[in-house]
């Protein structure tokens, strides 16, 4: 499987994407509040945050789908405005939702969106065949997409974003609802594209995807970029602290409140599975933790002690678990 990226005409000193003070409001709600970051060619930048943090709104403004209330987006040195459309040919956007025409075949979908990106003739036909191969849909190319499985539709959805070999690929939660096998394939493809020199903006709320793929990470919460750096740089902000993951059931809210009052506990957040703690030293603290939880009416199912990761960073920065 090979990939090729066409970004030769870009000035190597100019970042592929520059986002400056991006803003968006919906009535009284400020969905995005002054987000700024840059991505270089061949770099995979992960935008990490919980659901509703403003990731998708930020991405849609960068892709030119949504009008920004303020700020600036520059792609390959060209500013994106409501009147400039040519700059969009440098970008490939893969929306979180499946965006396909059900009554058209995979080949027809690819050909149509390829034409919208300015491809035509033999170049278009060649790229359509390449992407069909890349997404392993070659043998189903002429079937209407309505007959496709979820994984096939997801692969085609990504393939359309790659069709015109953009300088910047924007992937908005591309693995949501995808089976494990397809997910691994998608992650491999993204990694390969980055190696080929494509800049990738990747949003997800899956920590493991960001840790595996991204060179740098921006953590977004309540519409603001609250931290940015490599994984190592971000983890360093947590210090020597340890993460304690407690599987529990019962009054988790009261349990977390009482745990946060204990000496040595820096943060306590609620997750789907139970309670997530950030502590100085787990070993002497655990008996008191269990005692406090039992006293709060929380039934503990298991305890796991881990070295700090991006989840711990998020907990450290916001006081909340990423997946609460």
């Amino acid at each position, binding site marked *: 499987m090979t990939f090729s990226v066409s970004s030769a005409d870009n000035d190597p000193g100019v970042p592929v994407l520059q986002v400056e003070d991006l803003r968006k409001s919906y009535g009284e709600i400020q969905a995005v509040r002054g987000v700024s970051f840059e991505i270089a060619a061949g770099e995979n930048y992960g935008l990490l945050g919980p659901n509703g943090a403003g990731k998708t709104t930020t991405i*849609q403004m960068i892709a030119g789908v949504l*009008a920004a209330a303020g700020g600036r987006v520059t792609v390959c040195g060209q500013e994106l405005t409501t009147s400039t459309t040519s700059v969009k040919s440098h970008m490939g956007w893969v929306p979180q939702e499946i965006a396909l*025409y059900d*009554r*058209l075949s995979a080949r*027809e979908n690819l050909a*149509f*969106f390829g034409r919208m990106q300015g491809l035509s003739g033999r170049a278009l036909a060649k790229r359509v065949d390449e992407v069909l191969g890349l997404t392993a849909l070659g043998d189903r190319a002429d079937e209407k997409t309505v007959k496709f499985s979820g994984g096939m539709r997801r692969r085609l959805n990504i393939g359309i974003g790659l069709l015109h070999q953009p300088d910047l690929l924007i992937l908005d939660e591309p693995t949501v609802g995808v089976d494990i096998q397809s997910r691994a394939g998608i992650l491999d493809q993204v990694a390969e594209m980055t190696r080929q020199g494509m800049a990738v903006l990747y949003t997800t709320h899956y920590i493991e995807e960001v840790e595996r793929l991204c060179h740098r990470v921006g953590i977004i919460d309540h519409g603001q970029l609250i931290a940015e750096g490599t994984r190592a740089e971000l983890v360093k902000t947590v210090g020597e602290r340890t993460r304690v993951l407690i599987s529990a059931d019962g009054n988790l809210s009261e349990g977390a409140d009482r745990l946060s009052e204990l000496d040595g506990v820096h943060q306590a957040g609620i997750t789907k599975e139970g309670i997530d703690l950030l502590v100085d030293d787990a070993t002497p603290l655990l008996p008191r933790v269990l005692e406090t939880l039992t006293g709060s009416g929380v039934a503990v199912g298991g305890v796991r002690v881990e070295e700090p990761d991006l989840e711990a960073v998020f907990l450290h920065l916001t006081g909340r678990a990423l997946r609460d």
Partner: protein
Amino acid sequence: MRDIGWIVLKDLRQQVRDRTIFIFGLVAPLAIAAALSLAFGSFLRTDEPVVFEFGVSNADPGGSISEAFSVAMAELETEGLIGITFHRDRLSLDRAVEEGEVDAGFFIPHGFSQATVAGWEAEVIVVANPEAPVVAGVAASIAEQFALEVASASAAGATLALLGGFTPEQMVQAGLAASQTNPPARVASLEAEVRQLDGPTYYSAGAAMFFMMFVVGVGLLSLLEERKRHTLARLLSSPVGPGRILAAKFILSIAVGVGSVGLFMLVSRFLLGADWVNLPITALLVVAAVGAAAGIVSLVAGWARTSEQAQNFQSVVAVAMGILGGAFFPISGGDSFLATLSLATPHAWFMRGLGDLTGGGGLGVVALPLAVLAGMAAVTLTISLLGARRMLRS
């Protein structure tokens, strides 16, 4: 501009695969037009122009002007445009109209000629059945035509008077004689008044317009559908600007509407015997009517938040306007409130345009319906396009 074409082609391909468009664009109108034509076609079917029977009662015998009116009516009868029966007095004329022996009548009151010559107020009384507004309109038109003739005759007479030696009565008679030099215009005008569409053509045109309203909103509906399926966002992320996307959707609506009506007109000619005269001008009427319909449907359906809701709005507009516009039963003509209201529909103007064409003549004959339809299209499409553009930017 090629991207606009590709969007239209993509949408057409999807519509064709959906097949619904064939049901609304061809099968349903054919079935309805055939059923209506079979059931009611005899009321409208005429191979010859309609000939109305008029009664005339002259209470001003011997008067030069009243005699001129009788002569003018006799000329129309000779031309085969109307039939004439004379009645001895107003009472017998009223009875003849009431009992349907004649379609309408003219009563010339005593002293009519003298009053006219003296320049006093004088009138020919039209006796009509209120349940027959069309024939009443024709009778009123004949009376007005004659009044105009007399007025111009008076003017001509006055000119002759300047030359001297004429009595007032001689002046008017001379003027009337002079006005006879231009009878073809008068006959053509009346001929247009008494002609109308035959049954199969009327119901075919009505059904075509009625069902076209169900498909002509396809541009807006496909825009809403694209928004729902997230393909609109994907299009907006490509170098194609929102203006071009809207242009493509507008072209799609017009293409589907014109295609639907055009195909149906073609098929109805062979299957139902519909008679479409003057095809180039009829085609202009179709395009203008489709534009107006697309604008109205898009304007109303533009309030919808989803494509399903928009489809419901479209159906309500299509049914309401179809009935009001006389797509199934003729209601235009006359002065009723409903007839006035029907002028707000493209159906009424389209049917009127087709009816006008059957009387012969070119573009000038349908200038009014064509201008009204084009105006409707321009206003409603502009407003709905502005609304759709705002939707794309939000």
